[in-house]
């Protein structure tokens, strides 16, 4: 696991480069994909590496007026102001109390938002054939699941996550 966010950033860059190698491996028959595993509310989640724009050191989050509880607020991350959400609260209804150790900037096309992680993100290469069906709860945001340390970790589909966030916000009168 990376020790600092800077090292994490370097790993992410390395991981992007290594996608070429992964593609070559795919063409050679070994189908692999990379995911990033992070922790919210004591629970691990995963997201495909293509859905992560970058990782960041934790930054001050400014609350947003009249917003639902899963919206932590806004933060300035390398000159860009992004919405920060509490993924645990969004998916389980339980607010995450632990202090974040990193932010992940998730992306889906032009859409971006940040999620907090209680741990430094971990980069994992998995065989595509080892993907499992999505977890039963909040199955609409997952594209599948992987087994990690004898636990089932849901793999988030960024497009579905952004859609869910937008639906919840628009309906939060």
């Amino acid at each position, binding site marked *: 696991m990376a020790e600092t966010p800077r090292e994490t950033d370097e790993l992410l860059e390395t991981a992007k480069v290594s996608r070429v190698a992964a593609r070559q491996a795919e063409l050679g028959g070994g189908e692999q994909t990379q995911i990033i595993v992070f922790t919210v509310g004591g629970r691990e989640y995963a997201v495909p590496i293509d859905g992560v724009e970058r990782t960041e050191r934790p930054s*001050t989050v*400014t*609350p*947003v*007026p*009249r*917003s639902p509880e899963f*919206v932590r607020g*806004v*933060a*300035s991350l390398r000159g*860009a*102001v*992004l*919405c920060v959400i509490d993924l645990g609260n969004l998916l389980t209804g339980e607010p995450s109390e632990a202090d974040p150790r990193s932010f992940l900037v998730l992306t889906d096309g032009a*859409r*971006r*938002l940040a999620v907090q992680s209680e741990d430094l993100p971990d980069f994992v290469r998995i065989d595509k054939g080892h993907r499992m069906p999505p977890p039963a709860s909040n199955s609409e945001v997952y594209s599948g699941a992987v087994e990690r340390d004898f636990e089932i970790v849901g793999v988030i589909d960024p497009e579905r996550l*952004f859609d869910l*966030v*937008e639906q919840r*916000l*628009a309906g*939060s*009168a």
Partner: protein
Amino acid sequence: MSVEAGEVPLLRCRAGRFLLVLDLEALVALDAGEGRAGRVVDLRALLDEPVGRGQRVLFRERGGEGLVAMVVDRGVELIRLPLERLHPLPDPLPLLPGLASLRGVAELDGALAFLVDPLSLPTEASEPERAAG
């Protein structure tokens, strides 16, 4: 107050927990006397914050000669901010109902403030003219 090229003049104020900046384009007066505004909007009430003793800022209504008084916490300041430190409200927050008057986020020294457009304040938040204090 002189404004350099690439800078924008703003009013910095607070409404409860929230740090705000107000566009000065339609500003008429600070600490306006009673009776001049057609309606009063207490920003603290609009943002679900406690309402106490406040300071009144008077703006001209969009496309008319009417005046609207905005009430915020005491301690309004004039500031200049480089344009590059003003950002649009990040997605997906513009979808939030009831926040149409929040137009962006300003990076102040060590803090973020919400940019309020006084000309898009909801009329349902208005009260008849009365003392703000």
